[in-house]
């Protein structure tokens, strides 16, 4: 059974596994405000999408990074604050990238192991560059004096 991995507490970075809900995703040509929207990785983001009840981005392959850029644009350029879900080819080893690009839920196919996936969400304590979850790069946050 596919499951949903979802952030339950943003500040604590807590995640949990839940049974998959099935929002009635609408593609961009049929979507109307207040309903859940599903985007393909090659679509253009638009400002009205901030009024979606949730947005899903469908990854055609786990090595396809376009969905990462799309997520960054929705979050940081259009300030979408609702649920942003990765669907399609979601691979546990890409989760940590996805999280840093602003995804806060993942639909995990039944060929994946949810426990392994949970363990892959944050393999690193910090990163050099800015991201959606940490808009300041390390050089603005961390004292990295010559011998720090």
């Amino acid at each position, binding site marked *: 059974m596919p499951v949903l991995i979802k952030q339950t507490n943003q500040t604590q970075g807590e995640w949990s596994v839940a049974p998959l809900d099935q929002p009635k995703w609408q593609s961009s040509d049929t979507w109307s405000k207040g309903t859940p929207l599903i985007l393909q990785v090659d679509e253009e983001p638009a400002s009205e999408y901030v009024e979606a009840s949730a947005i899903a981005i469908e990854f055609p392959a786990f090595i396809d990074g376009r969905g*990462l850029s799309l997520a960054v644009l929705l979050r940081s350029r259009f300030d979408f604050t609702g649920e942003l879900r990765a669907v399609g080819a979601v691979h546990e080893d890409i989760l940590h990238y996805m999280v840093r*690009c602003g995804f806060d839920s993942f639909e995990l196919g039944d060929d994946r192991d949810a426990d392994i996936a949970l363990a892959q969400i944050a393999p690193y304590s910090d990163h050099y560059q800015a991201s959606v979850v940490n808009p300041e790069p390390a050089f603005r946050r961390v004292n990295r004096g010559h011998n*720090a």
Partner: protein
Amino acid sequence: MYQYDKFDHTFVAERVAHYRAQTLRYLDGKLSEDEFLQLRLRNGLYVQRLAPMLRVAVPYGTLSSDQLRMLAAIARKYDRGYGHLSTRQNMQYNWPELAEVPDILEDLASVEMHAIQTSGNCIRNVTTDEFSGAALDESVDVRPYCEILRQWSTSHPEFDWLPRKFKIAVTGATEDRAAITVHDIGIRAHRDDQDQIVFDIFVGGGLGRTPVVGVLMISGLPVEHLLTYVEAIMRVYNRFGRRDNKYRARIKILVRALTADGFRDRIDEEWMHLKSGPSTLTQDEVDRMRLHFTPPKFDTLPDFTDALAQQRLAEPEFSRWVKHNVTPHKAPGYAVVTLSTKVTGIPPGDVSDEQMDCVADWAEAWSFSELRISHEQNFVIPHVAQNKLLELWGAARAAGMGASNKGLLTDIICCPGGDYCSLANAKSIPVAESIQRRFDDYDYQHDLHELDINISGCMNACGHHHVGHIGILGVDKKGAEFYQISLGGHSGHSGIGATLGQIVGPSFARRDVNDVINKIFDVYLANRTQEEHFLNCFKRIGLEPFKESIYASSD
């Protein structure tokens, strides 16, 4: 040199642990071959014809003596006692065991090294001028900016899954030893009228199957905007680069499709939102990075010109070596030394563990423990006092690294080719060796002046054959190894972009390659004006005379 702080140590240690866990999952059957492939590539592990190959990052080609000793120790412990200097200034091992790679990475981390993003469709190791920080013709030591780019691109959340591999090269000297215009992004640092450091940014250059010279996207970009501008380029590429055909996936194809102006419009549109945002470099950060690269404490040395001239008179071999392998240094009394790995009978770029240990010792004794790897696959000892040159030469000669052929025809750039690489159409190492044997005579080589021969075993052009004065490309003709020859390429110099070589005509069997090269030399020698180098002669007389000579007598 850059030194890791706690932040770097933690990151690299976590990366090793992460990769170790991924390797175990793979060995446990929890990751498929294809899934693990993508993860191991991003940690430097590539599977070749005979065994896995591990590519260790040597950021911008700079190494310390301790780091090189570790590379020697790894060659001994996990490999067959040698390593290979690549054309991208990295160190490659040809025989590591997949299961042992996490241990190797841990050893590397102990000397502040890694293999992160040395393969795969991500931002690769940034390359630069191997003489950075030493060259007389340098106006900006670009290593601080290379390090800034290295950190920014390491495990970038958005840009680790690009349509194709992505290579950035940076130079800050008059002569472009980093070949920036044949990289996905090429950066030229220089000083503006107010003596401020600024960047000219080129995009869309590259070799491979569709060789293209990069186009200028912006000139005079202030330092603070470096990362946001590069981020804008990367986002446009990540979103719009083709993913349906791997031969059409490099950024050069996108630039061509959108046209240079169209591409620039896209970047500008994107950059508008990023410019002056949080990723804008702070003065503190730039200063911190520059501090890591403050020049070593050079001694005030007495003028050694006369004494060196005497030494050269007394020892003609040494004199040749000084002529070819020693380059002027910005500090008075110092010199930059290139130690050639191009010895007939040894694949270009291959170095033994003992040689690595020797080079490390020499750098420690005579160059503030600092050394470099050049894209010509040689070692560089950047800061040698001129009064130590003779001693260094003696030691290098005893260790088989004293060849006086830098820039000469036997200083061949050559990819691993069919002996190692599973993508190859043809072998390249034996071709290099047979050319070296045939034209071994120093006086003949010397008479030919500077001459770059570059050999690639396939279209991927790891041997940069398009920018060789003579380029040799392995092609497959009905299952047999053939070689296509091109003339007149160069990788750019003195603010002039690269020129791609012109193909002479139908390809040749391996046994004929040497004769063809010989004819090329004959045409050059017969046509050159006094002191005219091959490249200038070629520019003047064009391809035709070469073609005529090569194909007229081939029947």
